[in-house]
């Protein structure tokens, strides 16, 4: 729970930068949902990744430049948390995945995450121009908070649905994806056969045609 001044500061920042879409009391409006009960974790996730404030209302909130400092984000989180109980910002213990089983994390990742974020965490398309973003640059805290709060159209994976231990395993797996080397050479984004096929048709085939032309050209 934040201190009184922190909560007041958070309210002030909220009124300045968020109330036009989320309502003066965070009750929501046509342009933004209610924030009552979303918890500090939601606020931290959305603002610390630059998703909020949005450039324009819509279903997709791409991550962009962060415009608030850590203290300001903490203040806004504290204020929203004070409105109603909701998911808290994960603690350092919760985010500690050092002992988590990477392989189990992989299994959970493929069950719960790969269908939107792609098996390598490269992201994928949703309907009507929305997308599930790439996970390659996400921090463990962002990932945990996203699972916990279900931002935008992402489903909510609460700590009852997906216990802390399982979340840590997923964090460990995503970390391994981010750190992974590419054993067979340049990775082409690990997005699958489409990119590989394009690469073959352009670079490789060009080389083969060039070789064929070279063979036929009369020597000087």
């Amino acid at each position: 729970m934040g201190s009184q001044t922190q909560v007041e500061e958070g309210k002030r920042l909220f009124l300045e930068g968020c109330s036009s879409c989320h309502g003066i009391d965070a009750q929501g409006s046509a342009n933004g949902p209610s924030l009552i009960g979303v918890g500090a974790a939601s606020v931290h996730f959305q603002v610390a990744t630059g998703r909020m404030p949005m450039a324009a209302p819509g279903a997709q909130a791409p991550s962009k430049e962060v415009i608030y400092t850590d203290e300001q984000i903490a203040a806004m989180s504290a204020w929203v948390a004070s409105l109603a109980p909701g998911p808290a910002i994960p603690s350092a213990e919760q985010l500690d995945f050092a002992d988590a089983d990477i392989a189990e994390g992989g299994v959970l990742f493929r069950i719960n995450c790969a269908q939107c974020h792609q098996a390598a965490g490269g992201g994928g398309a949703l309907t009507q121009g929305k997308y599930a973003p790439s996970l390659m640059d996400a921090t463990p805290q962002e990932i945990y908070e996203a699972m916990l709060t279900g931002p935008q159209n992402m489903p909510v994976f609460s700590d009852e649905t997906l216990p802390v231990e399982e979340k840590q395993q997923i964090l460990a797996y995503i970390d391994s994806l981010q750190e992974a080397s590419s054993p067979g050479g340049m990775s082409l984004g690990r997005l699958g056969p489409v990119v590989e096929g394009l690469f073959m048709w352009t670079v490789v085939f060009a080389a083969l045609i060039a070789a064929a032309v070279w063979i036929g050209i009369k020597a000087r």
Partner: protein
Amino acid sequence: MSDNIDANLPAQPEHSGDGTVKPGYLPVAPIEHKPRVTDTDPKAARRAERQVASMFALSMILVVVFVIAYVTIDVTAVVYVPVLGEIGASNLVLGLTFGGAIFFIGAGAIQWAKKLMPDVEVVQERHSMESSTSEETEAAGNYERGKEESGFARYKIIRRSLLGAMALFPIPLIVMLRDLWQSEPGQNPAEILSSTSWNDGMRIVPDIGHDTGENVQGIRPEEIPVGGLVSALPMSIKDLKKDAVANMRDRGKSAIILVRMDPEEIRSQQGEGWDYQGILAYSKICTHVGCPIALYEHRTHHLLCPCHQSTFDLADSGDVIFGPSARRMPQLPIRLDEEGFLVAQSDFQEPIGPSFWERG
């Protein structure tokens, strides 16, 4: 011009003015030919010879490097290369040396042909593919003789019974393919496709991989938040752990997803009271061609299949709202059991997965 000024110069095709051609040689084509540098300049020819030989030599060196690399580079080692990133060291070096060794054999051979073999075009006549009239007559005569001597045309009953025997003998081969599927008597694919492991009272368990169903009694509704998504299976999957085929089979037909939405937002369902306080259970197998489907947008309630983009509205009986699927997503009716866990009310009321002829 058969005497070269210098033994290093490329040979020139032999052709004499009177049109006769030496054995093994071909007449030169009557078109303009410009000599190459290597045709006239012995120094250039020697340079080309050295170039070709050095490519072959480089190939040999690369083979040696390959063997050394194979033996010394650890198969798990990683190396950073600009542009390529962090990549496997063994694969990189083995590929470059092996590839280079082979490539330079090819490049050497081609340079040899281009620079040091004659590039004077020669001519060869084509003949029409059609055979001569005498050959045609001979062939036709053979056919007539064959017809006469075999009596194929004359002995009608031999002919007909032979055709019958030839037509029938492949049948055992086809019949023996029947046990590609070793079925029990009376088994019928359509019936099998029309039922799953779900029944009244079957507990729902979350999918966590191989140990699904172990150490867990079920899912309580309080554990699923509004906007939540849980991939789930029937509790009976636990008994199939040792039987991989049965395990996979059941996952392929009984897999479901549980989603929770505000009950106000449910516009329609496939049956009265099939949800539990806003928790809905739908099949996880797409009704288009059968990909698993779990991409759930919790605000729009849309379920999107990654394979061909069939989209279903889970707040509206799982109806198809976009894409090539013709059938809605089958809903599994659920309820709470006495101990407070979510269970199925019955099996699905329509076949899950892709459509088939006998589906009805």
